[in-house]
């Protein structure tokens, strides 16, 4: 099929169906309501179930149930709604249930606003809920990439029996772009059969129990050590990033999602003025890519993290650069979107300072 024009929110829903999701639970919140509307219409057509829960807390626990029964299940929300789901996400991680969660971020804190934001970076990459756990967090920059990543997200979730989060923002949800839904690359992952799923006793011997409670501290520590091994595997295998015009760059911006697109515009403006600027675009925010920093730290004069937040990913950038070069920050927040010319002005300031 040729490319068609689709809204991000609708494209991600269709991509999940193409990846085999048969269940969607959610509760309305702007700017991601089109996902619910789309799934309500589409899932019954493919023999799936759409259910609008009475709250986010309820919706995420429906994901716990469906995922625990071995189904591919999608849930989406936006920042305040994702906060309400954190308890359930921690349970899902603790009970080792695969699920894909999409956060179409808006401005915060609190109820905040409904315009795009990236201020949930800490929440997404540092667990968000209680206890020692991590999720693979993927941040696409275009609707096509979001569609491609959806298939990957379900595969990663199944491979590791772990929730995966896709971090988008209101811009990505609301905009329309050309997208090809039919040529999504299937991964060659060898996914294990879901012998642990609670599907009744018809097909296996013994009990399958999905649970995150363990009152014996020795056993709970052992569980945490096993989880840690899994997170280490994820950290080793699931790193994704793009390097854009980094080869001879004096200054390297670090940005993800829609902000990375804005930075690419900035790089074009900079190059017209003879400024050598590059971009490191983490696609996996957790695990955060280390390699592109090791490859550029000798050559680059400085790094700048550009975010729609007051400075969150910049902490991971500092860890990755590890003192080798200065790390700067430029951010807009609350639903304000950074403009290429303002980013460029900041870049000129920095380069003026390091000369």
């Amino acid at each position, binding site marked *: 099929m040729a*490319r*068609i*024009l689709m809204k991000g929110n609708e494209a991600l829903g269709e991509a999940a169906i193409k990846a085999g999701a048969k269940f969607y639970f959610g509760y309305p919140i*702007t*700017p991601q309501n089109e996902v619910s509307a789309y799934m309500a219409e589409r899932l019954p057509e493919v023999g799936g179930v759409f259910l609008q829960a009475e709250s986010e807390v309820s919706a995420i626990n429906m994901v716990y149930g469906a995922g625990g029964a071995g189904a591919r299940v999608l849930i989406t929300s936006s920042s305040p709604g994702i906060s309400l789901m954190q308890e359930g996400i921690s349970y899902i991680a603790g009970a080792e249930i695969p699920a894909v969660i999409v956060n179409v971020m808006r401005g915060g804190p609190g109820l905040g606003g*409904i*315009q795009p934001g990236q201020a949930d970076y800490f929440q997404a990459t540092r667990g968000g809920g209680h206890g020692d756990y991590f999720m693979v967090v993927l941040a696409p920059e275009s609707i096509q990439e979001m569609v491609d990543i959806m298939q990957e997200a379900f595969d990663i979730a199944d491979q590791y029996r772990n929730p995966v989060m896709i971090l988008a923002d*209101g*811009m990505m949800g*609301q*905009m*329309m*772009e*050309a997208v090809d839904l039919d040529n999504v690359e299937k991964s060659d992952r060898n996914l294990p059969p879901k012998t642990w799923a609670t599907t009744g006793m018809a097909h296996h011997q013994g009990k399958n129990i999905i649970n995150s409670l363990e009152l014996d501290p020795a056993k709970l520590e052992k569980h945490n050590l096993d989880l840690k091994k899994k997170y280490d595997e994820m950290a080793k295998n699931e790193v994704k990033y793009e390097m854009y015009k980094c080869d001879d760059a004096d200054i390297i911006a670090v940005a993800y999602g*829609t902000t990375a*697109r*804005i930075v*690419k*515009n900035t790089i*074009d403006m900079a190059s017209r003025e003879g400024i050598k600027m590059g971009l490191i675009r983490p696609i996996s925010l957790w695990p955060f890519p280390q390699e592109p920093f090791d490859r550029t730290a000798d050559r680059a004069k400085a790094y700048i993290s550009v975010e729609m937040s007051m400075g969150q990913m910049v902490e991971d950038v500092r860890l990755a650069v590890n003192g080798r070069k200065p790390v700067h920050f430029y951010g807009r927040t609350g639903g304000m*979107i950074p*403009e*290429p*010319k303002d980013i460029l002005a900041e870049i000129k300031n920095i380069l003026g300072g390091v000369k």
Partner: protein
Amino acid sequence: MEERVIMAGFGGQGLMTIGQLLAYAGLEEDKNVSWMPSYGPEQRGGTANCHVIVSDGPVGSPVISEATGVIVMNRPSLEKFESYLIQGGVLVIDSTLIDVKASRTDVEAIYVPADEMANEMGNSKMANMIMLGAYVQKTGVVKLESLFNALRHVWGNTAKERFVEPNIEAIKKGAGLIGELVK
């Protein structure tokens, strides 16, 4: 080639629709496109706008800060978005609804009595298509034929099919104001 156009007016005038139509037409020509709506606590009669980019290369930010074109169908939109235009940009103004002139002198302002023309055609709701026709004919961002094909592909076989031909006529009327029709 990269055209970055902001379309703005009252909610209900069909600015979102012509924005999507332009994006579809770009897609018909295998160009890269993006359509970004203003969203929020919108209401009928409130202001609405969308940002459309049609480009030979990859589209960077879908939000436009330097527009090559602006289409406005009410006065608040003219006042707000005129300043977004680059020098030499194209500013299409519905002169039936907006009774002032452009204040910028370094842009190419085109006055289209779109509402009046649409009323003469028997349906004031087609004013948006007249505006789009004039803009596309002026800039050549896509071929008119691509707009027509987009209309047929998107509205054909739907409840809106009966609007396809009248809308094509409206686009041609708008284009006709600029000069010879380019097919």
